[in-house]
């Protein structure tokens, strides 16, 4: 019953997103949308997914979009691009899709085709083969490690892409340094700053807990990476970019991002050299189960490193670009009068 309520709420939020003109409100609503879908995933027993969606959909993505609208402006143009043909197209496509769903197995039926092929093996045999209770981690890190490797490379590539698009080598103009814009909240919001200072160690500790407890409960490298990055981003927002840049060295964090991907690939190569298949952890150690444990630990660690550092790189580059823009505007303002 609760899932029907949540789905209806999702629909309401989506309709509100269409109607809103103010981009700030749209982005806040999309954060609410992410949180609602995370709650829906909990109701659907997908605890790992809910964890990720709560950290990503409601947290990091809202934040990144907010940083971007500070640069691009927060109001949307009211003219629509061919609304009636678009509506017609959408209604026809939706109608066809709904016609297609009539053949779908009903919600929650245990004999649906999706439950009949490879899933029973994961559920029945993963304890003997992998030896960890969380089946999602077993699939993600061992049975389908090759897929996860591909996805990690996509994340890394996206980080490289953001660097290529936004990061410009700083060259000082006529010898003088670019004036740093102090947009930190150093003078204001005392309560938030102190509470953040108290909470930060616990957030980081929680990220590490999620990282290493992913074998036994919901969690793992992806979630831990995002939570770790969220803590760093919170610090950067409250204490200003220039302070955060001293804490987090950009070259170092880029190195960590690349090292994570390298470590992941190396785990595969080592199992190849030991006589097994690529990512066959049974060959990492004399005991097959111990090999699986070692392999999963290493690649979860690799995933955590890359995800956390790519998220940090993305945020820092966005904020950096904004800071440069603001300092250029300030210079213009000083020159013009």
């Amino acid at each position, binding site marked *: 019953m609760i899932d029907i309520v949540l789905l209806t709420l999702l629909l309401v939020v989506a309709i509100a997103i269409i109607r809103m003109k103010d981009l700030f409100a749209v982005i806040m609503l999309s954060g609410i949308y992410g949180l609602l879908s995370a709650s829906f995933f909990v109701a659907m027993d997908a605890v790992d997914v809910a964890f990720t969606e709560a950290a990503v959909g409601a947290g990091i993505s809202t934040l990144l979009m907010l940083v971007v609208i500070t640069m691009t402006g927060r109001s949307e143009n009211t003219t629509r691009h061919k609304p009636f043909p678009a509506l017609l197209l959408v209604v026809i496509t939706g109608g066809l899709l709904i016609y297609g769903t009539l053949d779908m197995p009903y919600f929650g039926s245990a004999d649906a085709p999706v439950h009949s092929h490879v899933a029973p093996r994961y559920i029945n045999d993963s304890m003997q083969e992998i030896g960890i209770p969380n089946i999602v981690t077993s699939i993600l890190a061992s049975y389908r490690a090759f897929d996860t490797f591909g996805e990690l490379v996509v994340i890394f590539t996206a980080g490289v892409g953001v660097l290529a698009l936004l990061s410009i080598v700083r060259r000082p103009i006529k010898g003088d340094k670019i004036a740093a814009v102090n947009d930190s909240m150093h003078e204001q919001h005392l309560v938030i700053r102190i509470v953040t200072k108290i909470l930060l160690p616990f957030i980081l500790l929680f990220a590490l807990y999620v990282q290493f407890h992913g074998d036994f409960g919901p969690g793992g490298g992806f979630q831990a990476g995002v939570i770790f990055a969220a803590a760093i981003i919170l610090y950067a927002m409250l204490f200003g970019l220039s302070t955060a840049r001293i804490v987090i060295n950009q070259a170092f964090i880029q190195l960590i991002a690349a090292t994570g991907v390298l470590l992941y690939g190396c785990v595969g190569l080592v199992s190849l050299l030991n006589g097994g298949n690529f990512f066959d952890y049974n060959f990492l150690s004399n005991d097959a189960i111990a090999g699986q444990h070692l392999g999963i630990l290493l690649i979860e660690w690799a995933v955590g490193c890359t995800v956390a550092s*790519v998220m940090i790189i993305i945020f820092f580059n966005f904020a950096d670009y904004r800071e440069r823009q603001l300092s250029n505007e300030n210079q213009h303002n000083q020159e013009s009068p």
Partner: protein
Amino acid sequence: MLIGLFNNWIVVILMMIGLYIVIAHGNLIKKIVGLTLFQTSVFIFYISMAKVVGGTAPILADDIIQYSNPLPHALILTAIVVGIATIALALSLVIRIKAAYGSIEEEEIQRQDNQIQADKKERKQA
């Protein structure tokens, strides 16, 4: 039937709302929000497919007989993080478009592009 397929229908409607935003709205940020709506609807589709009535979260424990299907969970978990990485790439493209055109409205960008084309033609004729 209404309850049995309700999830799928909501997924279709959410997906179409996302598609409509991508087609009809000119603002690039709004388009990206539309894409995330579309993307999340696919996640909801996969996750509701994985649910088995009476099942529980796929973490092995004694005296539990029925688990929900863990495979779609593993697929969607990675898809969410890949999604935010690609959206960040899209957002950085938007930032560069704003720097180059001074606007993130599709029609304004199109107008400026047409202007440049027209100027080039005029110069060729002259």
